[in-house]
Structures are given as C-alpha cells and as structure tokens.
C-alpha cells in the first residue's frame, strides 16, 4: 500500500457527503413509504459505509488482498443472514406441505 496522501479537500467532501446522507436518512424516515422506508434507509447506510471505507479507510488505495478481506467479512455475514432468514421466513409454508 503506497503511502497515498489525499488532499484535505477530498476528506472534507467525503464528510459533507456523509452529513448529507444523514440528513436524507432522517428526512426519508418521516415519509410513509411502507416497507420501502427500510430499504431506502439501508441503501443510504450502505452507501455511507462504502464512502467511509473507500476514502477514510484508504481501501481504494489498498492492495487487492485488503479489499478481498474487506469483502469477505460482509459476504459471510450475508450468508448467515440469508440462510437463517431462509428458515424463519419459510416456516409458515409448513402447513401446505408438498
């Protein structure tokens, strides 16, 4: 990972983006979009997390290995979510059966 020094401007712009993201999240929460509320809130949160990871944590300038490991954590977490919810959300099918 070469010593990559970013101009202060980049950091400030990232900071502003995060603050705007926060404002949007709060505003969206006051609107009644039904189930869309959560989906929108989560996409904004993921976007903010990506921005923090790529710029503040220098992931964008890190080696491919670091990026793979950053992705691995989230990938295996999603496996846990997907397969466990696969159980909880399909339990009520049981009554109808094959």
């Amino acid at each position: 990972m070469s010593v990559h020094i970013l101009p202060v401007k980049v950091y400030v712009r990232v900071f502003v983006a995060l603050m705007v993201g926060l404002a949007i999240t709060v505003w969206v929460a006051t609107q009644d979009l039904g189930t869309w509320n959560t989906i929108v809130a989560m996409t904004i949160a993921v976007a903010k997390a990506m921005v923090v990871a790529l710029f503040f944590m220098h992931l964008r300038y890190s080696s491919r290995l670091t990026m793979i490991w950053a992705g691995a954590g989230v990938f295996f977490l999603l496996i846990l979510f997907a397969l466990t919810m696969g159980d909880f959300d399909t339990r009520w099918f049981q009554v109808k059966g094959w």
Partner: protein
Amino acid sequence: MSVTERELELGHQFEDLEQQTEAYTVGMWVFLVTEVLFFGALFMAYIVYRSMYPQDFFAASGELDIALGGLNTAILITSSLTMALAVRSAMLDRWKAQIGYILATMGFAFAFLVIKYFEYSSKFEHHLFPGEHFDFKGENGEHAEMFFSLYFAMTGLHGIHVLVGILIMVALVYRTWRMRAQRQDYIPIELTGLYWHFVDIVWIFLYPLLYLIGPLGSGKG
C-alpha cells in the same frame, strides 16, 4: 528531523518496511472482519425479531429520541473526519497537527458517550431497561422488551468499542508526544484510524435500524 528511513522500528521478522506496513494493514482488516461478524450476529437477532414482532419494534422505537441519535451520528461522522485528518498529518510528519486532530476526535468521542449516558439514564428512569421491573406503557408493547434487549446489547457493545477507541487514542497521543523528536511510523495511527472508522460505520447502521423505524411523522414502515 533529518532521520533516515532505517531508524524506523522494523520488526526482526520482516524483510523491509513495505512488507511490515502491508502486514499490519492486512492484519487490521482481518481483525475488522471478525468485528463485522461480532456485531453481525446481533444484527441477525435484530432482523429475526423485527420480522417476528414489527409492531412492537415500531412502538418501542418511538421511545427513542431521534434528535439525540441524529446528533450522535453527526458527532461520530465528524470524529471520523478528524481521525482521517490525523492520519494524514501523521503521514506528513506533522506531529503537532496529528496530536491536535486526535484530541479533537477524542473530544467528539467523549461527547458521544455523554449523550449516550443521558439516553441510557432516561431509559432507566422510564423502567425501559429489560429485566424484572421493565414496564412499557406503549400501545402494543407485548414484545417491546425484546427491542430494548437488542437496543441495549447493540448500543452497549458499540459504546464499549467507542470507550476502547478513546483509551487507544490516549496511548497514541502520549506515544506521539514522547517520540516527537524523531520521525515516527504512521502505522499505529493508521490502524487506530481503521478501527475508529469501523466503529463509525457500525453506528451508521445502528442509527436508522434502531431510531428511525416506527411512526415518526406519518411513516409506519
């Protein structure tokens, strides 16, 4: 400050500085993977119980103060900025700026914990801490205790991480001050920065999931 590269501390097991830096960075990211899964299991419980008792979660979430939560999110984002600038100034060997930014980050972190303290103490007064004398007067609060169990588990674990972050930063400031005369390795500050940004990312997810659900304005989702 004319100090050659060689005098930077190089572990005996490493061949050169570049290998050491890369090793510490990858090592830190692997540690952050364990933290992702450590918090992830709690998010798993949150997803399961919110899908089981949506109404109770919305009612219980109504008890949380959105403004304080939002302020806390802003504080943590700002502390992330000051930490990033601290890392940048460490890379540029400006140890005075570095100490200044770290102290700013610690200030914001401390403010975050103070706000958390007020939030927690108000919950205790309203008997919202899960346990024997938990009573929730809200409308459909049958499983509100589940929400508060998760609320205290997640924000409590996050709070402990913030506290640990502050302690590391105290050690860091002392080390930077003590070694101010020579050119310093930016690895320690870089790793603390990675840790701190991770703590910020966790809160970025916690805030919408815990505070911003339920009937705020007219929203029900």
